[in-house]
């Protein structure tokens, strides 16, 4: 039983939990796999950093926590410095980061890293809020754990009604940018 | 907002100043909005948490009344009086 471990970190307001939720749902509902999403509250309920952990597997998942992420998504400097050291020390591991908010200098890691200006992309779409959906697209392209269809379907039924097409564009932005990096 | 603020601005008889604890500010804008003399403005730059802290537009406008301090929910700013404002009379005359 191979379990893929994913961790997503950022600060409150970036939609970290929703990112985890969509990834998990895409796997569990639309790709017919098993997946578990857990969230970590900061020491206090409000205003601090937060993270989501997603496991994806072809079999039922027992132990539901991430030990060493295979894929790490970081959207804040704080998350980068706290979580990168715990990553799988392996080039097959994937590190996805918000290029404008995270500076990887001085943080050692073995994973393959890909950066994206997700916030800027989101701003271009007219809604900073969708930065996390850009990230989901980026993740789908690079982590190779979800089918694009599943991810799109999960985005569609997880966002507020009326914002579907905006969010799908955000997804596509991230997805295509991700594919373009692969090709490069 | 800024227009309304600009209207309030007048050179004050006493010179005041403010101190801002930038990393504690959450950019709520209370201080800016409720400074009776419109002396404050949210700065363009961010603090580490991504908020825009306030700054004095011009010390001449601040009389050190500390209303900003009384409003600030994050204890991030306070005003104090420095002394009489040497620019005050000039201004009056100009008027």
């Amino acid at each position, binding site marked *: 039983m191979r379990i893929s471990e994913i961790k997503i970190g950022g600060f409150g307001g970036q939609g970290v939990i929703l990112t985890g939720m969509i990834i998990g749902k895409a796997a569990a509902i639309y790709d017919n796999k098993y997946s578990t999403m857990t969230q970590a509250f900061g020491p206090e309920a409000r205003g601090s950093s937060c993270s989501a952990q997603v496991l994806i597997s072809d079999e039922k998942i027992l132990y539901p926590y991430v030990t060493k992420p295979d894929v790490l998504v970081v959207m804040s400097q704080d998350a980068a410095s706290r979580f990168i050291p715990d990553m799988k020390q392996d080039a097959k591991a994937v590190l996805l980061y918000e290029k404008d908010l995270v500076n990887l200098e001085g943080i050692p890691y073995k994973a393959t890293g890909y950066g994206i200006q997700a916030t800027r992309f989101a701003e271009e779409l007219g809604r900073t809020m969708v930065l996390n959906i850009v990230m989901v697209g980026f993740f789908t392209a690079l982590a190779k754990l979800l089918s694009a269809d599943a991810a799109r379907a999960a985005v569609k039924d997880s966002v507020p009604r009326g914002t579907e097409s905006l969010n799908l564009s955000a997804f596509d932005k991230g997805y295509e940018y991700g594919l373009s990096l692969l090709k490069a | 907002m800024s227009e309304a603020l600009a209207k309030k601005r007048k050179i004050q008889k006493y010179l005041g100043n403010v101190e801002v*604890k930038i990393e504690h500010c959450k950019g709520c804008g209370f201080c800016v909005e409720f400074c009776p003399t419109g002396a404050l403005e949210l700065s363009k730059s961010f603090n580490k948490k991504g908020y825009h*802290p306030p700054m004095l537009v011009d010390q001449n406008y601040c009389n050190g009344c500390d209303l900003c301090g009384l409003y600030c929910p994050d*204890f991030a*700013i306070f005003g*104090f009086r420095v002394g009489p404002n040497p620019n005050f009379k000039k201004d009056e005359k100009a008027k």
Partner: protein
Amino acid sequence: MSEQTNHTEGEPRVNPVLPYLREDRMPHIWCPGCGIGTTVNCFARALTESELDLDKVSIVSGIGCTGRVAGYMNLDAFHTTHGRPVAFATGLKLANPDLKVVVYSGDGDLMAIGGNHFIHACRRNIDMTIVCVNNFLYGMTGGQASSTTPDPATTTTAPYGAFEHTFNLPFLADSCGAVYVARWTTYHVRQITKAMKEALAKKGLSFIEIISPCPTLYQRRNKLGDGLQAMEYYRDNSVVKSGADTREVEIKYQGEIICGKFVDRERATWLDCYNTRNAAAIGARYRPYPWRENGEGGVK
């Protein structure tokens, strides 16, 4: 930018609120634009102006965002259980009447789960000051309806809009016997300060309701903007009617907010009554509580 900036001349100064705070616990947990911190400034200023011996001032809170106030004040501070600060404060005060006791409580803490303690404390006229930060919902637990949520504001437990009749807190406090009752909004920082000062000086149960923004849960969910917009709303829609009949100060959703000092009267406190009655029944042998050995001396 350095930590302390814009400080161009003069000696290094301190924020006048700082001596009243536990600096080692700053920054606090309240959200951007939350009004609770503003009320704390007013409280600190009222303490200064009251010239009280701060060593004798205790603050008691229950659980909630407002409940965190006790923990940030540099006083003897008790962060008790949800709904029970008034009952705790009753014990604290009666066990040592030399203490000045202040309860800081949210609308849920004070009037939902804690409603019984509140009405009985008012009835008994226990000598304490109760500050209620009314943000129209339960902040700490994520924005559920409270007994002050106006119809039709939505909350997480009133997803189609709150619909229950609400409590008019000043009227309730008045009805139950509080001797000092006022309401202000966080916009009214000077008035809050004055009210708190008066309340601290008042013998008996004084009650101050402060309408305060909860931008994260109340304003945002109801599309009322952020904390600043709430403050502007308060500024533009508050009507000061000191002495108003408390029956008439009910709050409606986005209606006008009647502010002012509504009640200020004299009424014997619980302890006054206790001493008067015991003295009458027991006679000269009765030593009034707390007995002071030599006039101004300490509690025996």
